[in-house]
């Protein structure tokens, strides 16, 4: 058989197997809509807060209006006492935070006694908690600044100066790359690379494992006769071509659809995607040769997903990973693949800044490629 004929046979074998088509095409397409689904609103807004106002004066009501005006929180009700607030918190459900304004709030401010507001957020849900505290602290900070400005004006300072003097200095916090801190922009670019990685491994595992099962059952096929090098290169070419199209669908159409930034040039992205697909493809061939039954490919890949996501470095800081986990994660093509794509495409890094990751991908492609070739050849020799 010529190389082209082997390619054609591989292509047919892939499309003859429903489970591979279901995983590769179905999975990639299905996840492109399912995965962004929970995050479509990007940032949590208008979390419900209960207010316990022991003061009731004009200034405390102004604070309430300021709380209501923040995008993060809205006031969903009032309680007379902290005990009642706590009770409603547990009974009603859906309440994310509490604001307690102490008695004598306004008097203490006028006297310069610095009253203490109590904010509480439900820390069971970390994003909810952060949002509630951010909203309440913003409102309280705004009120504090207004009070200071009013006081400086009363002392006889001019308004422009007073407006700036209310604090010694402050900090200007500017998120970059994902300036709105949106969740789609955070999760999707990384997870989509992992989905390509995982479905490709499953597809190759099912194909290789399935052929292994056929060998075992005495079924004859083209893969038993062609040299290992031809089979490997043909398989990588066919799967690589399919996945190049799927990668273009994700990083092109899907990213555009969800408004995710695409800062890398096509050439730069291609320079990363090629070694990435070769590394994943070779690893997939290795898995296909090592598993005794083809369905184990799905199991293996499925169970590795969550650990791979969390050790890839975009959720949990790499420096905080235990060293053995860090090194184990470096073996997976997803780890350098996700980082290289995020840095190039979302953060706008220059290619020279990801050269280490790029070399790591090529190294993986070479090592897994060699291993795959050796395993394929060993099986032919056994035959």
């Amino acid at each position: 058989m010529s190389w082209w004929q082997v390619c054609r046979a591989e292509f047919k074998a892939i499309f003859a197997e429903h489970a591979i088509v279901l995983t590769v095409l179905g999975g990639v397409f299905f996840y492109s809509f399912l995965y962004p689904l929970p995050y479509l609103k990007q940032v949590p807004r208008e979390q419900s807060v209960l207010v316990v106002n022991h003061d009731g004066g004009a200034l405390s009501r102004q604070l309430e209006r300021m709380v209501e005006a923040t995008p993060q929180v809205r006031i969903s009700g009032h309680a007379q006492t902290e005990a009642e607030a706590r009770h409603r918190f547990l009974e009603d459900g859906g309440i994310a935070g509490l604001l307690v304004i102490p008695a004598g709030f306004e008097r203490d401010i006028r006297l310069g006694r610095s009253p203490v507001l109590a904010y509480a957020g439900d820390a069971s849900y970390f994003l909810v908690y952060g949002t509630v505290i951010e909203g309440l602290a913003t409102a309280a900070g705004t009120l504090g600044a207004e009070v200071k400005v009013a006081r400086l004006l009363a002392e006889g300072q001019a308004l422009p100066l007073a407006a700036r003097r209310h604090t010694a200095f402050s900090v200007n916090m500017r998120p970059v790359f994902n300036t709105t801190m949106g969740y789609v922009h955070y999760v999707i670019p990384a997870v989509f690379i992992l989905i390509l990685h995982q479905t490709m491994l499953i597809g190759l595992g099912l194909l290789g494992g399935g052929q292994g099962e056929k060998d075992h059952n005495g079924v004859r096929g083209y893969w038993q006769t062609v040299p290992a090098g031809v089979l490997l290169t043909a398989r990588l070419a066919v799967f690589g071509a399919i996945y190049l199209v799927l990668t273009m669908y994700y990083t092109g159409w899907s990213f555009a659809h969800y408004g995710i930034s695409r800062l890398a040039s096509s050439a730069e992205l291609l320079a990363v995607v090629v070694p990435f697909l070769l590394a994943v493809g070779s690893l997939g061939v290795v898995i296909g040769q090592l598993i005794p039954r083809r369905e184990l490919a799905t199991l293996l890949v499925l169970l590795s997903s969550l650990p791979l996501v969390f050790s890839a470095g975009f959720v949990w800081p790499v420096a905080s990973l235990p060293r053995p986990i860090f090194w184990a994660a470096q073996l997976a093509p997803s780890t350098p693949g996700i980082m290289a794509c995020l840095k190039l495409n979302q953060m706008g890094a220059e290619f020279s800044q990801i050269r280490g990751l790029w070399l790591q991908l090529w190294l993986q492609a070479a090592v897994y490629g060699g291993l795959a070739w050796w395993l394929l050849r060993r099986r032919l020799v056994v035959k």
Partner: protein
Amino acid sequence: MATAVWLPPLLFILFWWIFSAGSSFDLPIGVVDLDHTSLSRTLTRQCDASSVLAIDRQFATVAEGQRALTGGEIYGLLVIPANLANDTVKGLAPQPTVFYNGQFILIGKQINGAMQQVVGTLSAQVGGLQALARGTAPPAVVGQVAPVRGQITALFNRHTNYAEFLVSGGLPAIWQILIVCLTVLALAAEKRHGGLEQWAGRQPVRALLVKLAPYTLLLWLQGLLFLVGMYGWLGWPMHGSWTVLILAQLLTVLACQAMGSLFFLLGRDEVRGLSLAAAYAAPGFAFMCVTFPATDMGWPALVWRSLLPVTHYIEIQIHQANYGGSSLDLWPSFAALLLFAVPASVAVSLLRRFSREVAA
């Protein structure tokens, strides 16, 4: 079956291990100090002293710092303007700027919180000194500097430890994947060994129950194992009833087994069954809302979410562990878990029909 004994605990431990550093991070931050005064050096030192931040590098220009930020070498860049100390003395309220990586949201939020705290504290100290210098009496200085103070309380999770969020949600997510997959594989083993025809034979329902019951017990025990690990061994707070939690776990195991049986029996094929199981259970974590709240999800997300047993289970777990409220509030979650009797009965009727076809 042997795999089912050792694999789940191993995965639970692996997952916890990833996050075992807790929340003391020392995230690398770069500094561009254009001021070079004792105030700017104090600010730099106090950032470094924070348990979250570590001043990793000094840059001469903003451009160099930006480049390191873009390359992911540092997660944040503190730029101290040229006349920080001077403008502070003049009361011009200068603003140091921190650029931080918003692409890695969780890391970015940590930097944001820690920076606000460091600058807030230092600014209050400096402001207090200035007020004293202007002749304000010491007790009134606090009111001058901060007319309103806030006391922040994290309800139900004193540590606000990220590891606790992610581990307490991630373990049930992995557990769901395991239950669904092991159910498919257990049924596939019957097909491989004696053949489904013989196994389902005359009493298909009995065969199914006998097959799955040991797994129910095993996976239920493993669920208990991670609960004991989190709330016993690691000593995370648990205010609710163990009985309620353990009961919820039993229902979750049964619900996941119902889904697993259904996936296998739809085509009586282990490969397709596992593919469906993968598509179904793999994104479970995203829908559990331990990260992104359900109140901000659209209806299609909520529909898919309600189809996953573990999302109902996690509501019960969080409710019991954190709030310790009355279990009566949980009836919707329990009812939802009981509704998985529907896929269970579909699976049973598929099996019955198959055994009738075999008999015919």
